Structure formats: structure tokens, C-alpha cells
């Protein structure tokens, strides 16, 4: 019932909550919300809420990058967030979301991983970014990516003494030089909509998520949903994503 109404409105050029097609819901970003984490942020997009927490640990580097730190991104679709999330290990959607956020961060080179080496080939910083969905009201990916980059920007490097981490004492910030922003664009018929909420997500034909770096280069793309795109759709979506990413980036401080 709801879906049909939502669709009819869109075909008439309107959205249920009155937004324009290229308008985000109200976005609130709150950094440093988890004191135990080295970095954290709560992001609300409309009623969608995601917390990103960054924890640092020491580990051995990968053999082919002996002087680089390691990034690991995980996402939990906690049952507290939605009646559709089941308890248990991450399902394909959670895994996909984590991997897309990871690619946005990794491919943009926004973390200077060569500054995270403590002893080459032996010890490097491992940066764990954990995304916890607190409330699912659509567009989890954009919210998660905002939370992740905000948390990383606010992440402090703990002091190390004799190979031990002294939690609570810090030597500086995690070296972050870019703010990659993910913008997801939904397609319904010929219409492109920004920030689909939960009801709109149900009726999308398909969706393209675009990760954009500060210099407007694209660092990740992921088509989602089982519909199709025309080639011209992709061009429009990328232009829109680049434009919107600039807006969102201003909110990340």
C-alpha cells in the first residue's frame, strides 16, 4: 500500500516527506561520541542512525606492503536497528556495505598508511573501523561512510611504550588527508533521487553508489539493486554525486 503511494507521488514529481529529488534529509554529525574508542562519530540522516567507532591495535603488516598500516572495515546490522535485521554474523548486505565503505577510504588514499609503520616488516598500526547501524530508515551506506570518515578525522594515535599501547595517552592524530564521500542515487523510472528513505528504497529500480574524493575523482562505484541503467543514467548519476559530495563534505569537520 505504502509502496504504491510512494511510487505514485514520485511519478508526479513529489516525495512523501516533501523533499526535492536532489535533497538530503536533515543530517546531524556528532564526533567523539564513544570515549573508549580512539575515534568515533554518530551520524543521523533523517531517522537513519549509524555509529562508527575506530579502534587501533598493533599488528604485523601484509608481506607485500611491509611499511604500511592496515585498514579493516566491518559493519553490523544490529537487530536493534530494524525488525528485518536478524542476530548473527553479517549477512551479504552488511558485508557489501562494509566493503564499499572500505573501498571509498582505501582507494582514495585518505589515510597516509605509510605513516602508520612502527617497525618495518614487523609492526604497524591496524585501524579497525566498525560501523554499527542503530536505526535503519534507508540510505545506510551514505550515513555509514559519513560516520566512518568523521570518526577517522577525529582519531587520535595512542602512545606506545615498549611495544605496548598506553590507552588514554596520545601522540597525535591519525594522518588523514582526504575526505571521500559516498553519495547513493536511486533510480525510479527516469527519476534520480538522492538519499532514498526506507519506503523509497523498496520501490527503487536500482541504485548507484559513488565515492568521490575532494578533487572530484571517483574512487569507488557500486551498482545495487536488480534493475538496469542506461549509459546516460550513469553519466547523470555521476554528475549528481559529484555535486552532492561537495555539499556533504562541508559537513565533515
Amino acid at each position: 500500500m505504502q509502496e504504491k503511494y510512494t511510487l505514485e507521488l514520485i511519478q508526479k514529481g513529489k516525495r512523501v516527506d516533501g523533499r526535492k529529488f536532489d535533497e538530503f534529509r536533515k543530517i546531524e554529525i556528532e564526533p567523539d561520541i564513544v570515549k573508549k574508542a580512539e575515534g568515533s562519530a554518530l551520524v543521523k540522516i533523517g531517522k537513519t542512525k549509524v555509529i562508527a567507532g575506530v579502534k587501533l591495535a598493533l599488528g604485523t603488516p601484509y608481506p607485500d606492503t611491509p611499511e604500511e598500516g592496515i585498514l579493516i572495515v566491518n559493519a553490523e546490522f544490529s537487530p536493534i536497528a530494524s525488525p528485518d535485521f536478524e542476530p548473527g554474523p553479517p549477512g551479504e548486505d552488511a558485508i557489501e556495505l562494509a566493503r564499499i565503505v572500505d573501498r571509498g577510504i582505501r582507494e582514495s588514499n585518505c589515510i597516509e598508511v605509510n605513516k602508520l609503520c612502527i617497525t618495518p616488516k614487523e609492526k604497524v598500526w591496524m585501524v579497525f573501523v566498525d560501523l554499527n547501524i542503530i536505526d535503519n530508515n534507508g540510505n545506510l551506506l551514505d550515513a555509514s561512510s559519513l560516520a566512518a570518515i568523521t570518526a577517522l578525522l577525529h582519531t587520535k594515535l595512542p602512545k606506545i611504550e615498549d611495544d605496548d599501547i598506553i590507552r588514554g595517552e596520545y601522540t597525535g592524530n591519525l594522518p588523514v588527508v582526504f575526505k571521500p564521500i559516498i553519495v547513493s542515487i536511486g533510480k525510479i523510472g527516469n527519476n534520480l533521487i538522492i538519499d532514498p528513505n526506507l519506503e523509497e528504497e523498496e520501490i527503487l529500480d536500482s541504485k548507484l553508489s559513488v565515492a568521490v574524493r575532494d578533487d572530484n575523482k571517483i574512487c569507488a562505484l557500486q551498482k545495487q539493486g536488480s534493475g538496469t541503467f542506461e549509459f546516460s543514467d550513469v553519466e547523470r548519476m555521476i554528475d549528481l554525486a559529484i555535486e552532492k559530495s561537495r555539499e556533504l563534505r562541508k559537513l565533515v569537520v
Partner: protein
Amino acid sequence: MSKTNIQLIVDGKRIDGRSPGELRPINMKVGIVERADGSAQVSFGNTTIIASAYGPRTLYPKFLQESDTGILRCRYMMAPFSVDERKSPGPDRRSIEISKVIRLALEPVIFLEEFPRVVVDVFVEVIQADGSTRVTGINAASLALAMAGVPMKDLVTSCSVGKINGTLIVDLNGKEDNNSEADVAFAMIPSKNKITLLQMDGLLTKEELHKLLQMARENCMKIYELQKRALKEKYRSD
């Protein structure tokens, strides 16, 4: 993070001797798994994939059934011996994401609404991995589905494109995949000119991306001819 500074293109030739716009030698054979409803083996250079399709068949457990439409289930797996360092068997996060992405690449062409409450299963097994496994898998899966008699709008054709040492290339092999500046997985419905899979990671300007999409489309049309030939060959009399 940072890719090793390997020279992947020297004097306009890639490490395997190809020019930037050249596909690897392609081999396609339909019907190689006796027990599957449909199956195909596809190789692009040293990447070899076997895909099997089953169904439509009854779906258990019942709660997974959708009352007004069938569902497509897809599983992408890498054989432990398919890569340099043995990969332990079983799904990992990458395989789970790739399984989802392959399913979404194939779903748009299948007339699932003709089979309420029922499932079509597609399995994609990487026998040997040398880059571009998921796109090769989609090419094989399309053949397997067609052979199984699953009603489809068209085949789905897939290829990889990307950028190495500043040059835009087609059909990335393993080394290129690991060291690329960007790599794109792409699939389309050839006769309708519609895109069903688009994934990219790396760094590209939007102009480079548009050029790559055109290259992907041109090469998919070539691969499509090979897919059609492989299917027709199976049904020719000896």
C-alpha cells in the same frame, strides 16, 4: 593501499604482450557438467570458470518462498587451488559480496515472475584465477542459464576494464588487477544496451570513466558473439 610501482605497460605492450584494447584468448564450452540442468566453462586467458544452473526447482525452506515470483540464488566460490596462496575453502566476505553482485547482474533478464515460489540456482566456481573472475563467471552463468531452458530476455555479457600506468585497458589479468590504478567490473544486456553490473575501485576522473564504459560496451558486444556461438555449437549435429 598504495600499489607497487610496477611497469605494466612497456612500449604500448602489456606484460602478456597485449595491446591496451585487446582481450585475452577466450574459450567457451556449453554443457560440460552432465548432472546440471545447464552448465558452461569459460576461460579468458588463464582465468577459468565453470558455472552450473539448476532449476527452476522447488525452494526449501518454505519461508524463503515469494508467493508471486521466483527467486534467483547465486553462489560464487573459489577453488582452494585456484590461486597462488591456497585459499581455504568456504565463503569469505569477498565471495559473499561477489555472489550478491553476480546475482544482481543476472536477475534483470530472467522472467522470474513466471515461477512463483520457486528458485533458480546458479553456482560459479573459479577453477583458476588470473584476474577478472567475476565477469568471466557472469559470462559462464548466462550460458548455463540459457542451456537450462530458463526464460530470459537475453544473455548477460560481462567484461573488466581499467587503468594501468595511466593507460585505459580492457580485460585485466591477475597482475594488472592487483596493481591497477582503477578496475571496473561491468555487465550489460547486449541487445537492449542496458547495464546490469557496475563496480569500480581506484581513482578515475569522470571523463576516464565514461571512456572506460564505452570500451566495456564495445568489448561486451564481441564477447556476446562468442557466447552465442558457443550455445549454437552445442546444438549442431555432428
